[in-house]
């Protein structure tokens, strides 16, 4: 029945180490809403920053562009990771939520298990692009209102109304500086993702 052969040891240093399965979540939102803080609160490494060159076709929507030419922009992306177990690693990528970074989004979000849109209630409009993006791409996400200094300027109902998000999209209050708070916000997203696989 059960094969009795001893556990075969890997051919040690000969073979390349087996990498963990990587999964990723995207932390989105406008500048300064606490994306990097949230990543840093829960990541097992200091958040790393990488620059990605993106090519955008200036289609005339950008006030500053007068020529419909391709331009290359460099955007910074902060990220961290959490080793779930030796075979599974969660990456958290923080990315600017501006619409003009659309190319970056596709590049980054493809294959993400979920997204968290961080919102500063004093600047709600900064997060519209991210909300629209996740809805359009049908990526499970939640809206997390960052409680700067422990308070929020609007009620959750007001936030929900202002963002015009679907009733099924969870809106939570969290504190990007608190590991447990970030963890719980990510869990809300993951529960959404899990519910979709079952529904």
């Amino acid at each position, binding site marked *: 029945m059960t094969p009795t052969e001893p556990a075969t040891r890997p051919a040690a*240093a*000969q*073979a*390349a*180490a*087996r*990498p*963990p*399965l*990587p*999964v*990723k979540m995207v932390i989105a939102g406008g500048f300064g809403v606490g994306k990097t803080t949230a990543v840093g*609160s*829960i*990541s*097992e*490494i*200091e958040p*790393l*920053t*990488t*620059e*990605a*060159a993106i090519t955008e076709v200036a289609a005339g929507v950008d006030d500053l562009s007068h020529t419909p030419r391709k331009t290359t922009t460099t955007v910074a*992306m902060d*990220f961290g*990771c*959490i080793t*779930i*177990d030796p075979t*599974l690693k*969660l*990456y958290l*990528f923080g990315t600017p939520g501006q619409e003009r970074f659309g190319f970056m989004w596709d*590049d*980054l979000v*493809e*294959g*993400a*298990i979920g997204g968290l849109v961080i919102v500063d209630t004093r600047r709600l409009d900064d997060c519209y692009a991210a909300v629209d993006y996740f809805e359009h791409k049908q990526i499970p996400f939640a809206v997390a209102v960052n409680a700067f200094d422990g308070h929020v300027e609007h009620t959750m109902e007001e936030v929900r109304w202002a963002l015009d998000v679907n009733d099924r999209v969870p809106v939570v209050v969290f504190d990007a500086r*608190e*590991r*447990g*708070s970030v*963890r*719980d916000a*990510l*869990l809300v997203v*993951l*529960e959404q*993702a*899990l519910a*979709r*696989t*079952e529904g």
Partner: protein
Amino acid sequence: MADGRTPSSAGEDGTPPPGPDPVGHVHAVRPFLVTAGRVAPSANGKTMPVETQVVATAEGLAGLDRLSFEQHDIVAACRRPQSIAEIAARLRLHLNVVRILSEDLRAAGQLTVHVPDSGVIHDASVLRRVIDGLRAIPDSRGVLRDTD
């Protein structure tokens, strides 16, 4: 994470980074000169996801001396599995440069490249493992999350 002073470019096993610490230096070479002008991320037309895992092969490590510059640094950085995002950040290279060079190094047998299966998004068992793993993370005061 408490001290936060570990140089990010050092290998996880404590080995010093190859060459001088690149932190704070400006790129002396335009990124796409490094890739001989290539900007297309991969051979099969699909962009290599940022979380793609890359590992040096024994052959790659044995032949480190014969590699130069970025190729050398990438193979040296991948003694342990790394995502291409980590490689880009630690070596201060553009993501697309890492994508292109990783593909080259894979074709030459110096790296293995593990592109994640996109179906994992819909895999409930993987999602449950991530959920359980996150639940086990204590909050800042070391208290486990209450089950609701």
